């Protein structure tokens, strides 16, 4: 019984990498349209989704993030012409690999959100938070030392 209530209280820590031109602007639009999503989503601005190194994703998990989401321009609309095409390959392979290592596939996600898709941004974040919340705390890919409170 107690476990159930504990699970309910769990709020995941979500790191969202957003490209400056589309998704960050999409997040801005979600803001100016007052489309809410949970406060535990925190955005890091990168020039392009292709700037996101797998190391950053792992770093986030190491530091105790429960979910990592990458948002970029829709394929074909990359401000830097081809950046997100590389992102698409890199992250497809990385996420498949993480899952192969036993990391829950729902913890990682890539979404294409244009500057005009504030509503989509908010929907995506709400859905991702919901998914990760259902999954519970990230235990398989975290460095326990970071949380050491001794």
């Amino acid at each position, binding site marked *: 019984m107690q476990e159930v209530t504990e699970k309910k209280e769990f709020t995941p820590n979500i790191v969202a990498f957003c490209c400056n031109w589309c998704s960050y602007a999409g997040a801005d639009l979600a803001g100016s349209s007052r489309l809410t999503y949970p406060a535990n989503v925190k955005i890091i*601005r990168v020039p392009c989704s292709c700037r996101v*190194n797998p190391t950053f994703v792992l770093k986030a998990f190491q530091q105790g993030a429960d979910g990592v989401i990458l948002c970029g321009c829709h394929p074909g609309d990359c401000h830097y012409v081809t950046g997100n095409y590389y992102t698409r390959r890199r992250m497809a392979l990385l996420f498949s690999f993480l899952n192969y290592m036993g990391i829950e596939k729902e913890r990682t996600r890539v979404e294409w959100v244009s500057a005009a898709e504030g509503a989509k941004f908010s929907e995506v974040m709400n859905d991702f938070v919901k998914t990760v919340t259902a999954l519970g705390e990230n235990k398989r890919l975290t460095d326990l030392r*970071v949380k050491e409170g001794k």
Partner: protein
Amino acid sequence: MQRIGVFICWCGSNIAATVDVKKVAETIKAEPGVVFSDNYQYMCSENGQQLIKNAIKEHNLTGIVVGACSPRMHEATFRKAAEAAGLNPYMVEIANIREHCSWIHKDMDEATEKAIVLVRTAIAKVKLNAPLTAGESPVEKRALVIGGGIAGIQAALDIADAGFQVDIVEKNATIGGRMAQLDKTFPTLDCSACILTPKMVDCAQHENIDILSYSEVEEVKGFVGNFNVKIRRKARFVDETKCTGCKICMEKCPSKKGLNEFNMNLDTRPAIHIPFAQAIPNVAVIDSTQCIKFKTGKCGICQKFCEAGAIDYEQKDTFIERKYGAIVVATGFKPIALDNFNEFGYADNKDVITSLELERLMNAAGPTNGVLLRPSDGEHPKVVTFIQCVGSRDTSGCGKPYCSKICCMYTAKHAMMIREKYPDTEVHVFYIDIRTPGKNYDEFYRRAVEQYDVDYIKGMVGKVYNENGKLMVQGSNLIDNEQVTIASDLVVLATAIEPEPSVRKIATLLTASIDTNNFLTESHAKLRPVESPTAGVYLAGVCQGPKDIPETVSQASACAAKVIGLLAKSKLKTNPCVATPDEAMCNGCSQCANVCAYGAITYVEKEFRLGGGKTEVRRVASVNPAVCQGCGACTVTCPSGAMDLRGFSSKQIMSEVEAICKK
């Protein structure tokens, strides 16, 4: 030791209503490295900026964090303020506590807590910022206008008048665009050609304008101030420099059954033709898919009769490459295809026509010489029914979700013109809503109702069917809660408009973003409505969103002003946030160059000291900072991490990650 200053903005109540700004500023004071933290109602205001400037000077700040609106709004503002106070502008970071926090969260505690984390994250980043200096790049004093419609013409004329060279690239054989096809223009009912053609002539005669008709943009390289554009000049099989526009070839051409695109295919034209009387350039073009010479190898009549000797069947597409400092996109629109709307019987009934077809039927230079005759039998229609919103405001997937904006006005115009010219004609208009914002617009529409007795029916048409040669238009009259069926002779569909499809390719070439409806995205919906997010690319006309002629012309002139402002500069500051390799760690493996979309990375052989007096020559990457756009694709490809991105270094991003994850 870092000395960080933190400035929390209230943005009036925009932030302060959901984020306890004072608490944020107070809590942040305890952060290592923070020596100053304050809050203010409007940081972006004169006083707010002064507060920042004073704090930088008084506290010898080495970096500042502004907790405010999106960096897309005011990053530049605060960088300027920092610079004015003697701090490198790149030692500024913005924590977006408005769009990403106060505006989306309702709970004060939650939002405040998040704001603190966002500010901490910005502090973590700014601590690793390095002062950066923008480089400079020259500006090519020439502009490219893509599209020769009224938007392109206006932009080109304005830029050219300011003394800069402009090239207009038009894919059709003449400039003029959609406006050239229109009969009258609302709300003044001026003759469209009468006001457009003089501008076309101005273009042709302007010493600073070069019209590249029948041409398309093939490739765009470079960046603001330094675009390198490859243009395909399609073979028109007529030497543009020789053709005098005498039209003898058109008379003599034996193949006269080509559909006349200019008249919306309502009549025919010869294989060799000049699109319309006032075409600019007034030069013929051969439709090689229709021409007998091209199909059978025999004929050659036009060549025989051309006194100027302008006909050249051997002509091939040629390419020219030119450098431009700025690009204006004005690719315009087309009416949507009506394949999804068989309820209106467009495909089955010749007398169901689109509004643009009606423009040609009403136009003195059109297929009927301006006499309104129905296409099926050439009879004068006695009952004309207009249907509005055909394909507009349609979220079912058949049409377009947006309002096409111009249909209410032109339908009123059409209705009025028919009633004016043929008072014996009965005119009905089915409408959902009438949208007439604009100077003298509603008055115009009311004239149709009040003065010209046009029958406006609120309701939509459910189907149009042919019964004994009559077009039965069945729709609802919502005011009377009736279903009505109007036996009509001509049905005019106010068809939705969409961006000219070629805009997709152009958007890709220019790396300009495009929305789900293929409209080009402007940099900011309100404050930068004519700029594309790609620096140096500007948007005019319907390619950016539905609009009428006055709006298009205003936007085109606004583009011109932006372009002139850009070209007037002798140098541009380049983005200092570019990739830089650490040569000592570079393997020279070429992976980074493989992913660079701009060709900014080359390799050089360099000598390195190994210690003990030994040296080694190694192949290492070298980045051209003027060409690099700072996307960072190369940084991830580099396994040794030798390639990093200034302003968004791996360490900076990782420190942001750490700060966010800290619980």
